[in-house]
């Protein structure tokens, strides 16, 4: 099968700091793949390289078998690659529904229309509202994002990427900053995503990782230390030593 997403020997350094070293990953269509590793391991950087926010020094990125290494961030999005941010990147002064409208406008090309009034594209608004209902955000549709509690803002962050109808979704710590009592809401939303989307999720909460992921890569200091099923990772001595540490022993 052609993998939905593949990286080959992806490498990046900032000066003398080697943040990504020969990372090769493979996500099948519909994959549920977790990327774990200690802080500063280079997880976010890897997402930036895959999405094109940063350009790699070496190696390549393939989407559905096509080399997209030379493509711009926008070009990659057009081909079905979407990402969320570890720290919210929202339109804080705009309402929730308008936040979600933005990706729909871009995806459909309507965002180029310079003359027709935005409100007359009613199917865009309908799609945005449907998406909000799916994430139980519809009641907040007309609330400015900055007035929402952080947990709901994280949902908007996910909703925006869904508006792109991606085939590959990169989630950078979707529950980061959300009180643990509420993180299950985020997890429920992620678990309910369409099965054909390949998902790469970065997450610190091991419970979430083992519940959600079918395969896991462990990144340490920019290198993939080991890759395997959740069971294999849980038993791996090296992983226990460098990452799970005391937690796994206890």
């Amino acid at each position, binding site marked *: 099968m052609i993998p939905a997403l593949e990286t080959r020997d992806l490498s990046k350094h900032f000066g003398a700091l080697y943040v990504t070293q020969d990372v090769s990953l493979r996500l099948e269509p519909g994959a549920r793949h977790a990327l774990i590793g200690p802080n500063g391991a280079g997880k976010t950087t890897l997402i930036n390289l895959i999405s094109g926010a940063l350009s790699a020094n070496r190696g390549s990125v393939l989407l559905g078998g096509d080399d997209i290494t030379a493509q711009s961030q926008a070009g990659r999005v057009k081909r079905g690659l979407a990402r969320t*941010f570890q720290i919210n990147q929202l339109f*804080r002064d705009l309402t929730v529904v308008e936040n979600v409208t933005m990706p729909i406008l871009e995806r459909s090309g309507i965002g*180029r229309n310079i003359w027709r009034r*935005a409100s007359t594209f009613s199917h865009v608004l309908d799609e945005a509202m449907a998406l909000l*209902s799916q994430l139980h955000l519809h009641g907040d549709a*007309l609330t400015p994002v900055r007035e929402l*509690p952080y947990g709901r803002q994280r949902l908007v962050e996910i909703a925006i990427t869904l508006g792109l109808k991606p085939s590959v979704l990169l989630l950078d710590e979707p529950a980061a900053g959300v009180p643990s009592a509420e993180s299950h809401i985020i997890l429920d939303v992620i678990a309910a995503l369409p099965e054909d989307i390949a998902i790469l999720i970065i997450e610190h909460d091991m419970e979430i990782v083992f519940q959600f992921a079918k395969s896991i890569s462990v990144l340490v200091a920019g290198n993939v230390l080991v890759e395997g099923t959740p069971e294999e990772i849980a038993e791996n001595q090296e992983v226990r030593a460098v990452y799970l540490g005391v937690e796994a022993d206890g």
Partner: protein
Amino acid sequence: MTDTPSDSGFTPDARLYFRAREGWRWAEALPWIVAIAAFFVFPDYMALGTQILIAIIFALSLDLILGYAGIVTLGHAAYFGAGAYATGMLSAHLGWGEPISAMLFGGLVGAALGFLSGWVLLRYHGLTLLMLTLATAILLMEGANAAEYWTGGFDGLVGISIWPLFNHFEYDLWGHTYYWYALAVLFCCFLVARRIVHSSFGRSLVGIKGNVNRMHAIGTPVHGKLVKIYTISAGMAGIAGGLFAESNAYVTLDVMSFARSGTVLIMLVLGGTGRLYGAFLGTVVYLVLEDELAKLSPEFWEFGIGLLLVVVVLFMRGGMLGALDDLVAWARGKGKP
């Protein structure tokens, strides 16, 4: 979180909300009524009135890029000046003085220049962009100074002769004809600007201003969109410049000066950015105040303007119009229990 009203099943109507924002309000008739009334109340001030209208078009063009796309510039006079020289030279060198086409030619030249410079400039942001816009205007002004044969250089471009409007309405000493002419052009520019900011394209500009990282991440061709609005804005500035050249029948290097770029920025910030009508209010307040203060004290009028700017920037988010909005909202809130 499950207990918030959001899950109660109530779904607000997004369409009504969008439509309400785009719809015309009664208050929007006010500036036009004032402009028409001014003609009858102050017939002797129509020369000043015309200059105010031209400055409003210029400030409106700046609002398109600053207020909606977040592009801060200190060189917008480059396009105003290019339009003024283009219209002026068309008459002075080629003998074409039909006012409407000559003014549109100024707009075209402004837009072309905006497209070319914007293509390069808009790859940068922040302080770099600010300095590059400033540098562009300086370079252009020095270019105009050097091309003395065409522009008249330091002495200014003379020999501009504009034909009667529609071959019928002559230029008059009181500036009555040009007042109506400028008002009509302003109205057209305003309609175009209003249409653009409420379009889907306009909304994505607001997205770029709000969070450019996110716009990149959803696949927006950010540079292309910025160049597009920059070109339109420069075209509108060029139209203002063309009108300026026609109404004064004289163009000097001053049309591209740093002072003019700075002044239009001050006017817009005074009135309020990102609301179209800020350009109207800021310009009127600035120019009327300048006129009045200059009579009061020819040496210190700038002090008054500076003081006003300090007050507005420190205490009125969204400029004077923003403060007015806040006041109305506050009064409404007070009216209800």
